[in-house]
């Protein structure tokens, strides 16, 4: 690790927090319907859908509307991918996807996971990328933000029956937040070197006379929303490690900024909406602490290099460079790893499969903690608020008082629902991983032997259920078994979590808002920040320890004892 490396990390994080402050104010204004510069377009969409944006919805109506929008998006994307070969804007003449792969990919993009069992430049037409995948990058992100806004409103008022109008939230977040940001960031990405063209691939003749096929496409705009919406699905196969998708250290820094700024801003939006900005800053502090700790572990492990390779004669100066690009450096690589997995983004600028064992543990663990650090756009905030309820419940048990958060009594119903939500992740991850590790036709997908092979399978279901989308890429994921089970894990991780979370929102909203008293437990100070971090670590992380001990931790000790597989 070097001082200049840490300076890069500090500057990028400072830029994120600095931008999150005004962005939070803006998002809160959009959520309240006070931003109207695209009003004619907005009204046209409402008219076509027969939508009255002023009509409030209870938690069930809100959730049903969200599910209907996601179902429509899934069916449209699935059809586009299956019919790709017959549709225009396909200069390379790619065929339609197999039903398994189309199912997996459609679920993946609708749930904001962006797990990819295909390689973009070898399988996707320009139309599929633009009108299929890009669109879901917007819609799944707006879905997450809308749900988070509904939960914020539940805490903001007392005795509420309604949580807002899903369609209004969804349309406004797309038009006023995601679209303008994607255009600005996208143009910056083109300036930094990302292609944006409909021209077919170019055949180049190299200096040594060989032929090189240069893939192109409308990449920059999709890459912008891929990061801003914490989607993470690469335009090209190797994602942001590709020189066209991550052309420079500045581009990779701007990508990190893009997939962090909205999740961090949403923590502050919560503070605005409950009219106590300190509450938002407390959540942000927990998020930032985990990002920093994760970055530090990855940076330190990678900078030390692989002892087996050093013994074979490799210079230690650059650290572990397998699966990494020269232009980014280890510091921005480590920050990318921690932010992309803490934020449910899943884009990668280096290959997680080739990280040192303890560095590879970090992305897996950050996802397993529930994708709340800072989590996906919207999903991070509502996941974090579920942990907050558990934290105040634990605090209430310790002092023997009925727990209370922001003047809302937290009772048995909310805690049962919160535990139900928190258990979705371990059930999906550990259940599917365990089954897949004893089925011969599933283990044949593993590339590496020994504990690293176990890590590859564990990472896949962790990434899918956590709606992250990054991978230990050695796994051959395009098989009927993995396409199907990973698809189910993605749907569970998204929707089986959302339904109990929205039930909590409905229940919290209906409660009266009590005034704070001298007996209220303050939820904005360092004590609460520490408590919340502890609850996330213990309730979110403990159940994964046995699996992690068999995977990366076992690999770490065996590797340092000189064992290879």
């Amino acid at each position, binding site marked *: 690790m070097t001082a200049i490396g840490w300076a890069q990390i500090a500057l990028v994080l400072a830029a994120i927090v600095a931008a999150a402050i005004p962005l939070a104010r803006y998002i809160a204004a959009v959520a309240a319907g006070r931003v109207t510069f695209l009003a004619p377009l907005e009204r046209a969409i409402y008219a076509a859908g027969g939508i009255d944006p002023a009509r409030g919805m209870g938690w069930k109506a809100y959730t049903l509307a969200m599910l209907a929008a996601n179902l429509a998006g899934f069916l449209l994307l699935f059809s586009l991918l299956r019919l790709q070969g017959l549709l225009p804007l396909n200069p390379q003449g790619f065929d339609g996807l197999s039903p398994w792969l189309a199912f997996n990919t459609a679920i993946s993009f609708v749930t904001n996971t962006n797990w990819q069992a295909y390689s973009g430049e070898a399988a996707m037409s320009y139309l599929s990328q633009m009108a299929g995948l890009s669109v879901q990058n917007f819609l799944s992100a707006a879905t997450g933000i809308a749900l988070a806004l509904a939960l914020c409103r539940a805490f903001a008022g007392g005795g509420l029956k309604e949580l807002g109008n899903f369609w209004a939230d969804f349309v406004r977040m797309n038009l006023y937040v995601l679209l303008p940001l994607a255009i600005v960031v996208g143009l910056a990405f083109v300036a930094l070197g990302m292609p944006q063209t409909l021209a077919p691939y170019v055949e180049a003749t190299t200096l040594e006379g060989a032929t090189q096929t240069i893939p192109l496409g409308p990449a920059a705009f999709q890459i912008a929303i891929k990061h801003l919406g914490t989607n993470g699905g690469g335009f090209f196969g190797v994602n942001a490690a590709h020189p066209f998708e991550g052309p420079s250290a500045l581009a990779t820094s701007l990508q990190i900024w893009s997939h962090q700024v909205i999740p961090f801003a949403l923590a502050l939006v919560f503070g605005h909406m409950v009219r106590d900005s300190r509450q938002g800053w407390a959540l942000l502090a927990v998020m930032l602490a985990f990002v920093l700790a994760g970055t530090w572990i990855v940076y330190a492990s990678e900078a030390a290099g692989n002892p087996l*390779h050093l013994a*074979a004669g*490799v210079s230690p100066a650059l650290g572990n460079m397998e699966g990494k690009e020269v232009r980014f450096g280890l510091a921005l690589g480590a920050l990318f790893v921690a932010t992309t997995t803490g934020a449910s983004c899943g884009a990668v600028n280096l290959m997680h499969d080739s990280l040192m064992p303890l560095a590879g543990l970090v992305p897996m663990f950050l996802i397993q903690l529930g994708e709340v650090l800072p989590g996906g756009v919207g999903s991070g905030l509502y996941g974090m608020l579920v942990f907050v309820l558990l934290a105040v419940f634990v605090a209430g048990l310790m002092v023997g008082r009925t727990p209370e958060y922001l003047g809302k009594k937290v009772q048995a119903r909310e805690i049962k629902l919160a535990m139900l939500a928190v258990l979705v992740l371990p059930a999906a991850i550990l259940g599917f991983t365990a089954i897949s590790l004893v089925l011969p036709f599933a283990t044949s997908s593993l590339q590496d032997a020994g504990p690293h092979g176990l890590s590859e399978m564990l990472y896949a279901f962790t990434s899918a259920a956590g709606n992250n989308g990054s991978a230990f890429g050695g796994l051959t994921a395009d098989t009927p078994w993995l396409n199907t089970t990973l698809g189910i894990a993605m749907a569970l991780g998204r929707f089986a979590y959302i339904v109990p979370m929205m039930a909590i929102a409905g229940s919290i909203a209906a409660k009266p808002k009590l005034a704070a008293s001298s007996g209220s437990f303050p939820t904005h100070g360092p004590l609460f920040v520490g408590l919340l971090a502890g609850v996330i670590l213990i309730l979110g992380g403990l159940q994964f320890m046995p699996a992690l001990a068999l995977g990366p931790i076992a690999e770490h000790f065996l590797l340092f004892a000189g064992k290879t597989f």
Partner: protein
Amino acid sequence: MNAILRPAIAVVVLFTLLLGLAVPLAFTGVAGVIFPSQAGGSLIARDGRVIGSALLGQDFASARYFHPRPSATTEPDPANAGSTRAAPYNAAASAASQLGPSSAALLEAVRQRVAAYGGVAVPADAATASGSGLDPHISAENAARQIPRVAEARGLPEARLAALVAQHTEGRELGLFGEPRVNVLRLNLALDALR
């Protein structure tokens, strides 16, 4: 039912037209006018023929050129349907080795690269494959280690090549971000242009 399905279908279809066609097509037009080179893939042409992209590495095997990093990209094997064979810097299918840190296959590959490089304190970028298989850069140390070979093959003084490498070593971006590096294709183009 209609009250739920109608808005869902209308909103998804309209956003597909807006966010999936109208905006990206307009964006493509604007980007192509403001940044034509970048939007088109940063292509480099020599004598009217495209020889590559400034951003994508390409394979160099001749002793007369500086060599890029090892690459894990592959291509379909014509002799054996359904399997692949090594094809370094195949830009049509970006790929990394994805080998784990405890992989015996990776250690063996590293040992062979180290042996081919002289065996001691080999720069890590020369002993390992990149994340994309298309890394356009090598470290300055890696370039320096190749100067004697290129100088001998071209019959040029080493000092002249050292000056050329120094001239093509890019510093950190804005003096802070990333790592110092050498773009292999640009360096080799400059090499061909000498004399």
